[in-house]
């Protein structure tokens, strides 16, 4: 909103108000001046200049305040700005008119005051008059703008609520992947006989996934670590099904784990990777998971180098082992302390073997569409989810999420203390 270079074209009503208002002032000026000074076309033309420049200056003011996002300022910050601007504009307006009258002196003019005090007093009155007019203009302009914004926000809120409800409904349908659940249960029947211990473990994992899915609607955001826990449980179950046909690699920056993601966001991407990658490959398939923070100022390369150290992070490492032993306290370690800037983002990538072209034919795209809708509702344009063929034979789903003070919860696991920003407030920002 603040960075737009071209202010939006004003509606017709705006021009009617401008012309009507300044035209009215012109008429009042001409009619009231009759009594004091000899009427002349030169004097009237001066008033025309006043009204025309009134329109021009206030129109410029409008462009300026839109470009600098004054509409979104709180009243206590807006008021001094508007008063100061109006005062300056009043001086400019009077200066223009005075200069005009100097250049085109009205015949039989009434400016007889010759003393310095009288001149200053006259100018002060003119400035005050114009200031009042400009204040009136600002009052009307901001009044209308505020009420319009209020209405727009209300509509947006309703739209967001409806979209959220729809997304939830669709989410329940698409996210609880029945094909996976039934296949998994079928494998479990065989596993119970073959390897009872592993089967017991798998049943617990399946229960945990089911619980996570059912509870996903309750929170707008969860720490990445928590989401990863479910993803790992899910992958463990898929490994039972696919056995040695599936290999998994993870490169997870421990610093990224406490940051918040929409629940099931990563899960959706991983499920898609399995569905359109490994389960379509006749041979072996692979999934590469990575999560990192980018755009940090403090120690930008530290975590990347750390994560890439193969000795420290073998392919099958469990992310929880990588987590720092002393969890950071949110009060002492704000994102800024981690080297975060406004441009820092959480980048999550899920790569799978396969081709985008082969998958597109069979995909309903529901999971991805659903995820994109949720991202838009939560983060607006600051989050994205792209699907692309990273290199031949590899499809990559990349999720970019903003990392900001309000969303950063520096609580490692199953946190009860992290702050989940409510959806409505994030929609507004």
């Amino acid at each position: 909103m603040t960075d737009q270079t071209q202010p939006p074209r004003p509606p017709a009503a705006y021009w009617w108000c401008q012309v009507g208002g300044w035209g009215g002032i012109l008429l009042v000026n001409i009619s009231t001046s009759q009594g004091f000074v000899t009427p002349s076309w030169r004097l009237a033309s001066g008033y025309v200049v006043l009204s025309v420049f009134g329109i021009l200056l206030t129109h410029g003011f409008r462009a300026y305040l839109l470009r600098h996002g004054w509409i979104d300022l709180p009243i206590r910050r807006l008021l001094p700005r508007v008063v100061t601007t109006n005062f300056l504009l009043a001086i400019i307006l009077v200066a223009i008119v005075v200069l005009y009258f100097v250049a085109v002196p009205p015949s039989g003019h009434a400016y007889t005051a010759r003393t310095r005090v009288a001149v200053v007093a006259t100018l002060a009155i003119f400035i005050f008059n114009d200031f009042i007019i400009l204040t009136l203009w600002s009052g009307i302009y901001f009044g209308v703008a505020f009420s319009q914004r209020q209405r727009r926000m209300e509509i947006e809120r309703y739209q967001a609520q409806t979209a959220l409800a729809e997304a939830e409904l669709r989410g329940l349908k698409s996210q609880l992947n029945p094909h996976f659940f039934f296949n998994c249960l079928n494998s479990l029947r065989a596993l119970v006989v073959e390897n009872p211990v592993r089967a017991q473990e798998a049943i617990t994992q399946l229960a945990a996934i089911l619980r996570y899915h059912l509870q996903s609607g309750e929170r707008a955001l969860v720490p990445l670590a928590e989401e990863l826990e479910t993803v790992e449980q899910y992958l463990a179950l898929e490994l039972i099904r696919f056995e040695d046909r599936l290999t998994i690699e993870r490169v997870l920056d421990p610093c990224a784990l406490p940051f918040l993601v929409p629940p099931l966001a990563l899960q959706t991407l991983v499920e898609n990777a399995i569905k359109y990658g490994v389960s379509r490959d006749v041979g072996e398939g692979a999934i590469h998971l990575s999560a990192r923070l980018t755009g940090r100022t403090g120690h930008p390369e530290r975590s990347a180098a750390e994560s890439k150290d193969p000795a420290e992070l073998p392919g099958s490492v469990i992310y929880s082992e990588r987590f720092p032993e002393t969890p950071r306290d949110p009060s002492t370690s704000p994102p800024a302390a981690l080297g975060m800037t406004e441009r820092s983002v959480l980048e999550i990538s899920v790569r799978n073997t396969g081709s985008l072209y082969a998958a597109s034919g069979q995909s309903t795209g529901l999971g991805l569409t659903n995820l994109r809708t949720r991202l838009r509702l939560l983060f607006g344009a600051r989050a994205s989810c792209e699907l692309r063929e990273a290199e031949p034979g590899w499809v990559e789903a990349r999720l970019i999420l903003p990392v900001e003070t309000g969303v950063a919860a520096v609580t490692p696991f199953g946190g009860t203390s992290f702050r989940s920003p409510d959806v409505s407030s994030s929609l507004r920002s």
Partner: protein
Amino acid sequence: MKALVIDDERLARSELRRLLRAHPEIEIVGEAANATQAEEKIKSLQPELIFLDVQMPGRTGFELLAELVDAPRVIFTTAYDQYALKAFDFGALDYLLKPIEPVRLARALARLVAGGVDPGRATPAPSDTLGENDQVFLKDGERCWLVRVSDIRLLESEGNYARVYFAGNRPLIPRTLQSLESRLDP
């Protein structure tokens, strides 16, 4: 009765094997993990019955069946393919939902007996020609049918394809009329 189990998951195959132990008349002669393997094994082992998973890597079970020249009897197994199953003419098709219920498996096998094949008796290997009581599997896009040859009213040539007319349907299948003619009992 010789049967082939086709499923991409090893555990799913072993589960079906275990369930079939209750049915000694079914002899499992082999397993296949994908459509290509299945084609080879059908050719070499000549099973009379196949248990076929719908969702498989590479070609799906439907695609495999539509390409088989001489299809054995089929019992589909699937976890959750409500869309795929909707495309079917249910009456003619046997399918089992995974995890498979033993009762349903028994019922499906019993239906095979009622359908004219006695699973206990060694049946001669299927001949190359189709009799009027044989069934053919047809697939056109997303729709599939299992049709009795006697129900087919007309075969129409459309280039390298043939249009099959039966019971209000007229799917286009990727076979030439000549190849179909050679398969039919004169």
